[in-house]
């Protein structure tokens, strides 16, 4: 299929260009080493002080691996919002507006290519560090497989969210503030630093229903506590959120189209 292979090639090229940064590896090692060590101390002390073997349904080891995955995911975030913003401003997008699918797919292909490589790097480095600190007893191949299955949609979802932010460039002078807010909300409500099970009880159902949970919390949780029912739930939430974001995207695109033709580009 020519159509498919073209985007595959774009994805692979973007992936390959990121492999050249060897210096990146060592600085990621140091960064991940520092924060995972700090998290480990934080949760070791917390588990000890509450004399609990499980918190939020997770043992200390599971907690550490949960955090490793969430960090790997969030640190692999790409600059899609910024790239789309630039393309809106320099007119690349206006030119593509009549055939939008190819632009979205192009952006998706490059972003997924980059993200997969960086995530894998983060995962490998984080895994080495986490294994050294807390071992890897509770983990299983099932968890890894389920993680792998939830990642594509998680990345797609984040891509769509960022793309929508980038489209705001049609109306806003500067979208970087919006992109920052989006990123931070994703972190907080997506359970980056603390699993959603440890949120106040009344807040949990709400937070779990939000799309952010499907980007970070979902994949990390299924990895440390593989469970088919949970998996099905996560996947269905991801699909629904992706549909919702896609519809949002299409609507925004239509409005942007009208604005471009009204103002002459």
């Amino acid at each position, binding site marked *: 299929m020519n159509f498919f292979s073209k985007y595959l090639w774009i994805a692979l090229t973007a992936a390959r260009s990121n492999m050249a940064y060897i210096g990146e590896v060592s600085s990621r090692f140091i*960064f991940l080493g520092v924060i995972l060590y700090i998290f480990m101390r934080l949760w070791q*002390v917390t588990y000890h002080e*509450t004399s609990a073997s499980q918190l939020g349904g997770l043992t200390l080891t599971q907690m550490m691996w949960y955090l490793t995955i969430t960090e790997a995911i969030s640190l692999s975030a790409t600059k899609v919002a910024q790239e789309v913003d630039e393309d809106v401003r320099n007119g690349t997008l206006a030119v593509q507006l009549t055939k939008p699918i190819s632009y979205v797919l192009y952006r998706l292909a490059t972003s997924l290519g980059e993200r997969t490589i960086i995530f894998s790097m983060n995962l490998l480095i984080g895994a080495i560090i986490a294994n050294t600190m807390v071992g890897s007893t509770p983990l299983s191949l099932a968890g890894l497989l389920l993680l792998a299955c939830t990642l594509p949609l998680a990345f797609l979802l984040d891509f769509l969210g960022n793309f929508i932010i980038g489209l705001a460039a049609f109306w806003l002078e500067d979208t970087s503030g919006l992109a920052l807010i989006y990123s931070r909300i994703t972190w907080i409500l997506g359970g980056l630093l603390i699993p959603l099970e440890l949120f106040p009880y009344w807040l949990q159902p709400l937070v779990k229903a939000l799309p952010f949970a499907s980007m970070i919390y979902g994949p990390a949780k299924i990895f440390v506590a593989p469970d088919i029912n949970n998996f099905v739930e996560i996947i269905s939430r991801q699909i629904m959120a992706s549909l919702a974001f896609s519809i949002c995207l299409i609507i925004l695109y239509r409005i942007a189209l009208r604005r471009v033709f009204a103002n002459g580009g």
Partner: protein
Amino acid sequence: MMINKLCNYLNLAKEYVRLNMLAQLEYKGAFAAQIIGMVINDGTWLSFWCLFFSRFPALRGWDVKDVITMWAVAAAGFGLAYGICGNALRLPGLIAKGQLDAWMLYPPALLPHLLFGKMVATCWGDALFGIGIYIIFVRPDIAHLALFLVLVLSTAILFVGFGILCGSLGFYLGNSQGLSQQWHDATITFSTYPATLFDGSIKLILFTLIPAGFISFCPVEALRQFSWQFTLASFAGAVIFLILGTVIFYHGLSRYESGNLMEMRG
């Protein structure tokens, strides 16, 4: 004579802050956006701690107010430090590009003059955040607020001194953005987590190689106990690192002046 000199440098700093602010305010929108952005960024960590403490009320004797105090001191100190001495973060690049030359053509001593030259706009977001959360969440009395501001100054001195120290590696390792940046970042990261979490040798490191302890421990204990000993300790650490940084900078400068750096300048 010394007082006179100090006054001169304070006035010089004041003038640079004035001009840097004027330059930033030429683009009010962007300046405001950067400040707000940093407040949002810092707010993320605050919300984490609020969530954490809503579930676990105490962490080795520290409660949410202590952690907020720690964050307030760190953020405000960081903001003050690099809002005024912005070039402390940019030394390796300046050294590698030979941009110290321009500063050397002026009468004031190179290091302070150079440091004042730039202001990092986002830092005022950190400063605002730090002072803001301390006043709003900890609700201090006048005495504690005064001590807080004094400790913010000590933290700022530590950040500047440590920034100079890391940055001066640029004299010896070329544009070692990577290494000194990592060391600097690791210290900042550690300074936003309670030092009480760490024991033994790590705790020792937090007061030596990675001096975050002078930010994440001493000032908080000083405010908790309203103790002059911990205040003194905070200042001691700050001053030691300022002196260390200055010494290494001027030693590296002599290499720069002989022109024999790893990368030869044009």
